[in-house]
């Protein structure tokens, strides 16, 4: 039997609430996972949470307090009826905001506790985390219908779509507006990401007699009650404006109490934030993180985003490494140890890796980049943390329309992919069967920009976004290779494809 051990009443007003609770969070030693930075008791809508995010990835723009119908009459949780809370409960991997309302109804009073609960389940063998909007109520016996409005917000990029999930299949096209009970669920996916699964999934709970409505919602329109979606109606997002919402309805017959409400399961497109430090020799330029090639904007940030790594910055740091016209592997090792910024390298919420931009490899001009900080070269206890790009080796002729800057960026991203323990055999961009190692590959292949798909492979995405961090985190995981092979899991190995494959290499990816 668990026991609550601590209790604190702390009245904080205005801006003081911010530093106060920041300090509390730090004292608990918790790390970045969920956030719901706005809890809003309002006159009309009761308690509402806004901008709920998981690992920095937006999940819900807002989740309103339910309104309910008792024996056919509608009631709302107005702020005037609030009798306790809201209270915030915090623990590692857990947060809940709860407030209590006493709502007068025709037959008496309905006492209800409104709760928003966020639980990190990553340490229980699941990648998903849970966010729930519950009501626990007591009142006169009757038929209760509760309605929640949930505004999903899985990123600000275009391409976000609702999908109907049926068992293991996911159909990214909405074909009906009301989901029948069963194992089907709504998922909100971001089609710009190759991450497996949905980013926010809502499953109707049969025990609650639950139904889900998806409603198109054009910017500027009010939407205060569920209505049917017009089949085929465009759900194109426009900026940050929420243009479709979910309504979750539960139906409880002839009861006087209960706990009901939607459970949502969220998977962050970004597993973790990351920082890349770039140091360079004096005569070469920093590699800019971002360029347009073949009418597509590519950056290291967008490349790693496909695998759930949110690169916050490719920090152009030291620019005064003395020139060396031809650098050996031993010299690279020496340069990295002397120049990397040690203060960053142990952050758990912001993974760190290092890139040195130097002039040329002692191995010759055809060598574009190298990952040189693996295993036994790791003399500082931080294996697989550093790589280098050879600047002048990129000053050559490229396919028409390609550029030196774009190829430098590709090299930096490719080598950092090695630092994240991804391999050349991870060259399949996914669902592109004709891809080959040197043509039509992912970032980890040898294709030039003209045929390179700016993404990681399905195997790389799986490992970087979902597998235990030792398999990808720079400086804090397994070595790149061992015993002549790569250090990886069975699951990752099963997604490898031979680099010598000639036809339909990625058919099963």
């Amino acid at each position, binding site marked *: *039997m668990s026991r609550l051990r601590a*209790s*604190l*009443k702390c009245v904080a007003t205005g801006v003081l609430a911010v530093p106060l609770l920041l300090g509390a969070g730090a004292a608990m030693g918790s790390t970045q996972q969920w956030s719901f930075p706005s809890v809003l008791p309002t006159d009309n809508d009761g308690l509402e949470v806004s901008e709920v995010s998981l690992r920095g990835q937006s999940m819900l723009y807002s989740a309103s307090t339910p309104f309910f119908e008792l024996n056919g009459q509608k009631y709302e949780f107005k702020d005037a009826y609030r009798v306790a809370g809201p209270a915030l409960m915090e623990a590692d991997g857990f*947060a809940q905001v709860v407030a209590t309302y006493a709502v007068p109804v025709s037959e008496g009073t309905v006492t209800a506790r409104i709760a928003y609960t966020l639980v990190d389940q990553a340490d229980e063998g699941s990648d998903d*985390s849970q966010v729930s909007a519950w009501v626990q109520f007591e009142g006169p016996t009757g038929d209760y219908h509760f309605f929640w409005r949930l505004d999903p917000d899985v990123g600000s990029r275009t391409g976000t779509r609702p999908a109907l999930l049926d068992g293991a299949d996911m159909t990214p096209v909405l074909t009906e507006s009301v989901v029948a009970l069963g194992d089907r669920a709504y998922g909100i996916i971001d089609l710009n990401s190759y991450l497996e699964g949905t980013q926010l999934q809502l499953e109707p709970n049969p025990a609650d007699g639950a139904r889900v409505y998806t409603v198109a919602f054009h910017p500027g329109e009010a939407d205060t009650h569920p209505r049917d979606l017009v089949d085929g109606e465009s759900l194109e997002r426009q900026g940050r404006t929420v243009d479709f919402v979910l309504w979750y309805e539960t139906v409880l017959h002839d009861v006087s109490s209960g706990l009901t409400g939607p459970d949502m399961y969220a998977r962050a497109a970004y597993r973790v934030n990351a920082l890349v430090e770039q140091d360079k020799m004096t005569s070469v330029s920093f590699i800019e993180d971002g360029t347009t090639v073949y009418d597509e904007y590519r950056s290291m940030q967008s490349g790693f985003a496909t695998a759930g790594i949110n690169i916050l910055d490719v920090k152009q740091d030291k620019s005064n490494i*003395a020139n060396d016209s031809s650098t050996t592997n031993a010299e690279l090792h020496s340069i990295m140890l*002397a120049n990397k910024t040690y203060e960053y390298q142990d952050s758990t919420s912001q993974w760190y890796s290092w890139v040195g931009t130097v002039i040329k490899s002692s191995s010759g001009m055809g060598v574009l980049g190298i990952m040189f900080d693996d295993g036994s070269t790791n003399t500082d206890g931080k294996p697989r943390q550093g790589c280098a790009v050879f600047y002048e080796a990129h000053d050559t002729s490229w396919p028409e329309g390609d550029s030196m800057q774009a190829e430098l960026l590709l090299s930096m991203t490719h080598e950092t992919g090695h630092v994240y323990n991804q391999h050349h055999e991870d060259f399949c961009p996914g669902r592109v069967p004709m891809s080959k190692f040197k043509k039509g590959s992912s970032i980890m292949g040898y294709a030039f920009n003209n045929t390179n798909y700016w993404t990681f492979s399905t195997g790389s995405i799986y490992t970087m976004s979902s597998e235990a961090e030792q398999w990808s985190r720079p400086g804090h995981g397994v070595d790149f*290779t061992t015993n002549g092979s790569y*250090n990886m899991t069975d699951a990752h190995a099963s997604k490898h494809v031979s680099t010598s494959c000639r036809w339909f290499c990625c058919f099963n990816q």
Partner: protein
Amino acid sequence: MVGQQERNPIEMREESMKAIRSLTRGLAIAGVLILGCQSSDQESAEAVRVQDEAVSVLNDAVAAGRLATAPDRFVVRDLDQASEAAIAYHESTKNLGKAIRTPNVPAYDPESFARHIIEEHQQVPLSEGLRFTISTPKTDYVIGEPVIVRATIENVSDYVKVLPTKLDPQFQYNRFIITGPSGRLMGYSPVTIACTRGNLLDVELAPGESATEDIPIFFDKDGWMFSDVGEYRIQALYRGLTDDAERLDSNVVTIVVNPGTDLDQEAADLLMGGNEQGLFMMWGEGDHLEDGIAALRQIINLYPDTTAAFYARYALGSNMSVEFFDGRYNRHRPPQPLEVKRYMGPVVQAVLDGTAPRLAPSMLEKAFNALADAYDSLGDRDQARRIRAALLDVQTDVL
């Protein structure tokens, strides 16, 4: 399930004050001034009530199967806002949860995967018109002695062949598979992964032309490869990823690692006792590998007549014979001819006396040329000339 707690108001107040003191310490560290926190009997009672509400929800959620587990301990704070704005913008919740995941996936068995590599390699058709051979300068080694393999690809066809001729495993075209004394399959794992793009490293090999490289395989990312006494079988597997060179299999070379004398073994223990020694010897340089350099010097001092000492001198002399860009000082350290003379002199002399181990051709050239260059730098051109002439004689003998 979260339990209801029997509460004593006095205890609750003490707990509240304790929590506030704890919070105060945390904030003091963060340099934040606390204002607005209060604690009174009335407020403690309110805290209890708020807590009751929260715990009740959790209990029911767990009972209904809506929540798998509830935390054993947590902090409750009342976010009640009397102001009209009524907004609690609490940044603290940005820092909730656990970002660290515990390892829950088993590691792939490396030896199995080494076998898988071989099986996969063998599914690719052998390329014709190219001969791929490996050799070592000798078959008998003393424990700790560096093993250098000479790999050669020769175009034995009548046509020009296009292929990458970088045979060092760091380029990943060529892999070494080694079967150790216990029968264990070992793959050579290079300490670096060097990359190119497209066909930038491909070259044309004319009929009769060959490409040769001496490759140190005594040390890899996992440490020292030949650390046990016994027989080793070495084979190279090449995949050039071009139409002309899809797959080449080398011959198999067998070597035997012998225990040597007791002193040889003690010296070898010191040599193989650290990765920096291995890195330094493999790279032939590395001023920043101070521990490795110190170990090699110790071998020379403690076991001057051993095989390990011979190679320690060679490695230290090799390092001093080249310019080294030292990141620690952000500058180049020029060659040090006196140091080269100090270390390479005994190496060359041992070769000339016939007491040196049989060296790989590239090592032989390196030792003699480095010493000759050092004499040149010191102004003794006659001695430099004599050493270069001696190298020609030795090479003739070797070949």
